[in-house]
């Protein structure tokens, strides 16, 4: 089971929101779509969900155009939170489940399971409008996958959640993955993307800058992040050959290298045959790569 986007373009008169986008998501995979505000993520989601038409290109699910498939195989958590404010939590989940073709008997077991898993037992008879923002989000999240979709899109699922609830959500996403659900998601928090995604697509103004595995993306940059603990000043460090950038982080100094191979000469220079407290060479984090790729001011995925 795969989702395939081939040469997908969306234009609004003179503005191109998505330009020639190509990627494939395999069954049971978690795929991240990353980009700043206005990069074309939500437009891409809406085209996949057949809420918007493509200007050109094709989107298919298991080889079938998405506009001809049964909508019940899809699940979607929109970026903006939206549930019926005056409907009770339980009613809401039954309503969305039934709307996706499930009967009440089937739903009962799943609703009980997810309500318990997301610690909403005491809230099940409450109206949605009386819940906290985080709890509303949990209800909407359950509503988006209560019908066990084969393919689930989560647009900013972590926003507004506290660390405890974030972990609950991460566990739920991994459980859905284990059950065979294919997941496409976007998130503002790069650490979540790094933690969950197998593959990703980096969008900038509708154009894909990178599509592939996270490791491949990191390998493109090589191990160019050098953390050192030394008595050298930042000016001295910046003057070393191959050093692109220097910044002080807590009790260490982080150097960004032009190429990985400069690390050896820097090590020789810094140690000069003597003991140094820290010298650690790593891949850049996704957050750092993102900032570098999109030249970002706002880090948003």
């Amino acid at each position, binding site marked *: 089971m795969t989702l395939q986007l081939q040469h997908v373009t969306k234009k*609004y008169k003179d503005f191109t929101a998505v330009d020639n986008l190509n990627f494939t998501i395999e069954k049971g995979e978690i795929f991240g779509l990353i980009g700043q505000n206005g990069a074309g993520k939500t437009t891409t989601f809406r085209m996949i969900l057949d809420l918007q038409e493509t200007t050109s290109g094709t989107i298919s699910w298991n080889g079938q155009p998405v506009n001809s498939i049964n909508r019940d195989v899809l*699940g*979607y958590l*929109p970026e903006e*939170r*939206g549930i019926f*404010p005056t409907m009770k939590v339980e009613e809401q989940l039954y309503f969305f489940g039934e*709307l996706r073709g499930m009967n009440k008997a089937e739903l009962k077991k799943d609703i009980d399971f997810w309500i318990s898993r997301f610690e909403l037992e005491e809230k099940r008879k409450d109206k949605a409008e009386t819940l906290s923002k985080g709890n509303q989000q949990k209800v909407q999240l359950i509503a988006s996958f209560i019908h066990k979709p084969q393919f689930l899109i989560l647009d900013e699922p972590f926003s507004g959640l506290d660390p405890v609830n974030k972990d609950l959500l991460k566990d739920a996403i991994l459980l859905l993955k284990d059950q065979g659900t294919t997941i496409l998601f976007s998130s503002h928090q790069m650490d979540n993307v790094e933690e969950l995604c197998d593959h990703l697509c980096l969008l900038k103004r509708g154009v894909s800058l990178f599509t592939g595995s996270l490791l491949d993306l990191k390998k493109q940059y090589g191990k160019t992040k050098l953390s050192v603990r030394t008595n050298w000043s930042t000016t001295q460090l910046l003057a070393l050959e191959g050093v692109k950038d220097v910044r002080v982080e807590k009790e260490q100094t982080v150097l960004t290298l032009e190429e990985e191979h400069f690390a050896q000469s820097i090590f020789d220079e810094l140690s000069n045959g003597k003991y140094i407290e820290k010298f650690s060479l790593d891949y850049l984090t996704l957050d750092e790569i993102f900032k570098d790729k999109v030249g970002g001011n706002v880090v948003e995925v």
Partner: protein
Amino acid sequence: MSKFNLLMKQLYMSKLKSKSFILMTLIYVAGMSVAIFWSDIKELFTGNDEAQQIAIVNETSADLSGIFISNADMAFIQDETNLQVLEQKVKDEEIAAIVEISDKDGQLHAEISTFTPLKLNDQSTISSLLQYAGQHYAVQQLSLSPEQAAQIMAANTTITNKNLNEETSGGKSEEEKQSGLWVSYAVGILIYFFISTFLSMITTEIASEKGSRAMEMLLVSVKPATHFKAKIAGVLLLAFTQMAIIAGVFLLYAKFVKGGVIWDMAGDIVKELSVSYVLYAILFLLLTIILYLIVGALFGSLVSKVEEAGQVLMPAMMITLIGFYVMLSGIGNPDTIVIKIFSYIPFTSGMVMPMRIGATDIGVMQPLFSLGILVLTIIVAYLFSLSFYKRSVLTYSTGGVIQKIKTVLKVTT
């Protein structure tokens, strides 16, 4: 249950239990109750009031005592007392008015003296009685025999209508026209109130789903066309429910209150109506509500949040109001050119055409033509709204209605 039925049921049940629907239904029932029990309510407030004393000072030789007969509101006293004494009594508010009747050049002249102005109704009653007394007095002056006098006073012109237009021949009797007028008036009011309630309901319902972003969750599950149709069907069902409640309460009142007088009265009116009129009235009522619901759904999809619903509703409400006033103007004369024009405009024909059908001698083709225009407008509005709805329901923009339409067209074409 199909997705259409689920959406329709969800809307229907949530609105049926909503405070606004219950309150609105209660207001309609209360309004109807007040109308039916008006005389009793009036009695409650005025029942204990004593009838106003009106002194009649007749300075002519004619006997007018048979004309001024006391009733619950006014007690006429034939008083021969000195006028100055009576005037003092008026000032002291012991009596409400003095009607001084005298002869002036062979004509009856009356002067009404009051300290506190009389109520409009009482003033009108006294004026009518004085007019009649004037005729009576004039007849008495002619020295006619009692039979001749009685013949003149009872003179009545018999009027029959003959319609030379073959298209509208077989014209209605006055009774039929009167019945048609009253029923059309009721249909017009019903359409006006139902449109005001349910147009606003469907617009705010869709605007609220759009504003709360529940719309995106819904439209992943159902096609916009299904959502659009389910909303219209749900609100229509709700309108039928409200109509049924109001009709049910009316029938109960009619049958069991005041010994079934209203039932008999309604029966008499219905007897005067033709089957075709009833069918036309029902069709115009339903089709007009459907047309406004389609437009309301489209309006709801245009706004970004529920607070903006009033802004887009305004034009439709204005058109409804114009139709309502045109219909009201027809109570005096249902055959004016304005009424004729508005009886063909789809958004107002539902309120105006039933009046023309019921209260004028209209040809067969004209109502059919108006109905045809209405049906055609509904089809065009439905197809257009459906196409536009798919594009507008997930488009969020600021600005006025025109700006919103421009934005939808810009981002979806």
